[in-house]
């Protein structure tokens, strides 16, 4: 049981890092942004490239996050913001277009072959119940907890969180009350893309590989998680990320590869939505 829990929670932490940004964005703008998963790949590639040039991995990670923040700011300013009045489907498909183009750009720039990211994270590690737990997994566990508690605190107890909630509730009223909505949106995108890039670097170290298509599966799964958590509910998103991560690893541990993981995730999603059409935690329930 224990190995499954460790694995599930570490994977869940990655999903949470990736899905939190789009969830916050959805809360504000009511649009789904798949291109966030491209930030995961971009972060990993920038990180691994700098690492291969001799920089420490955490510096590579920071640079990857910075690069992804720039991507996020550019996308929201020049693509999403002008499209907000066009309805969510336009934005969704446009973000898919960005994702397709970027994946192919990664393939052209960094070649289709996998790159290694051999880093040993200097954190306590060892073997628990016969299953090895690596330093990066410990780091992922820590970050998962930090993100969970951090988001809860920031959203519920800071001015920033208040601004986000006010804007998510009613953009126009927030604007009238003096909230600079554009700045809030830009800030959320920056934060979301940075977290996705961090997830990408951790993912790359955890599995010691960076490939152009490493964002594919996380992209779909991120959507499922956001919906499962109750659209636009960041705490629900984080909860759903851990639920999906744990469900996958428990199924994997006890039943083996019975069905493709994505299929499991989506079957669970469809079943839950048919019973609870507004997701696990509908809006309002967990707004602090």
């Amino acid at each position: 049981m224990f190995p499954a829990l460790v694995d599930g929670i570490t994977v869940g932490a990655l999903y949470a890092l990736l899905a939190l940004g789009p969830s916050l964005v959805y809360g504000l703008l009511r649009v789904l942004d798949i291109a966030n998963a491209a930030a995961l790949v971009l972060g990993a590639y920038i990180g691994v490239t700098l690492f291969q040039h001799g920089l420490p991995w955490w510096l590579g990670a920071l640079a990857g996050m910075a690069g992804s923040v720039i991507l996020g700011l550019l996308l929201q300013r020049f693509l999403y913001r002008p499209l907000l009045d066009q309805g969510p489907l336009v934005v969704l498909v446009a973000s898919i277009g960005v994702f397709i183009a970027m994946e192919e750009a990664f393939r052209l720039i960094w070649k289709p072959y996998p790159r290694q990211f051999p880093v040993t994270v200097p954190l306590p590690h060892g073997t628990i119940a016969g299953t090895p737990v690596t330093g990066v997994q410990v780091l992922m566990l820590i970050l998962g907890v930090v993100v969970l508690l951090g988001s809860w605190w920031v959203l519920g107890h800071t001015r920033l969180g208040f601004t986000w909630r006010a804007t998510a509730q009613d953009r126009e009223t927030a604007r009238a009350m003096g909230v600079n909505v554009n700045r809030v949106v830009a800030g959320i995108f920056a934060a979301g893309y940075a977290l996705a890039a961090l997830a990408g670097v951790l993912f790359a170290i955890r599995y010691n590989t960076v490939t152009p298509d490493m964002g594919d599966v996380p992209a779909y799964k991120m959507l499922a998680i956001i919906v499962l958590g109750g659209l636009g509910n960041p705490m629900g998103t984080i909860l759903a990320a851990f639920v999906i991560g744990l469900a996958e690893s428990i199924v994997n541990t006890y039943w083996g590869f019975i069905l493709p993981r994505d299929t499991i995730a989506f079957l669970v999603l469809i079943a839950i939505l048919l019973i609870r059409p507004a997701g696990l935690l509908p809006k309002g329930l967990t707004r602090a």
Partner: protein
Amino acid sequence: MNRARAGRMVAVAAVALMGISVVAACGSSGTTSGNQPSSGSSASGGSGGGAGASGGTIKIGFFSPQSGIEASDGKSALDAAQLAVKDINANGGLDGKQIELVQYDDGSDPKQAVSIATKLTTQDKVAAVVSGSYSDQTLAGASIFQRAGVPMLAAYAVNPGIPGTGDAIFQIATSGPVEGKAGAVALTKDLGAKKIAIVAIDNDFGNALVKGFKDEAGTLGATVLSTSMNQFGEKDFGPVIDKAVAAGADGFYLVEYAAEGQQFLTAFRQRNLTQKIVGTEGIDSTQQFIEPNGKLADGMVFTTVLNRDSTDPKTQAFLKNFAAAYSHAPDMVGATTYDAFMVLQAASKSGTSASDLKTGITNLSNFQGVTGTIEKFTNRVSVHPVDLEVFKDGTVHHYGVVDDPNVINP
């Protein structure tokens, strides 16, 4: 009324645009053989038609994924194809005719293979085709080549439907069940494993090998404890390994590609296990697996076609020339692609028309290629000994060979 008519007019305009874009498609794609420098200059006349075997040149078609998710293997294949054409042309060509390679990117998409195959047969009028692509595209192209009577050699795709298409479609790669049987021989006879756990990719390749493996393992008196079929991109093999070890497995049969193989072996090493592992040609990729991750696989034996330690001058020359041209060692995909062209050369002794080449390939016997000896084609699948290689200190070395006729004849 007016508005309805306006709509109809726009629809007409759309149809007209359709026509224009299709014509544009035709006009612009005549230059696509430009990737091959030697044929770049003649490419503009490429769509002019004319018999493939006319004059001093012969057109050979080639398609592979250069974009999309399969691009990494596609690049290996295209590199080898261009090297093969260069070598053949320097060496007298096909029955005295210089090969003009007409190559297309199929974009990892079977629909594109349909239009490429049609283009190769009707516009480029190639005499033969080599597929450097995956099963989906190779299958889609095969039936068109069969109908046109143009022989096609699939370099590394192993879907049983490919040679099953008809008498013009051949498979250079080892038959899937045969490679599976050879894996069983290696794991049970050579490495002595008796209780085996199978971990395999769930696609046509994985299923074909697993079937052959199970048949032969049964014959050899070994027990298959479990079979786990995973998807592309699976990363977490820990639980499957733990379960198999708990059940008493003393050997793993690993039918995975580079990415999944890396994750399996990482989990395996982390557990400090000593079980024997036999892998397959799926991980025989220089840039995707051997160079970056060879050390993970130390001690693992795998079934493939390319004997790196071969003393055959042909193989040695291939290994050397490929590394010189592309600054990395060739892999199984490259080797079988190269040999597909060499088979064409061998088959061209009695003529270079499409039907001559088809007959030549059908009747080929004891062909010596860089992947060793292809004894013959049985039901259009190559019959040849299966090479066993082993990882030592991160590099690949010859381990043995499975040449029992009962195993290698499909």
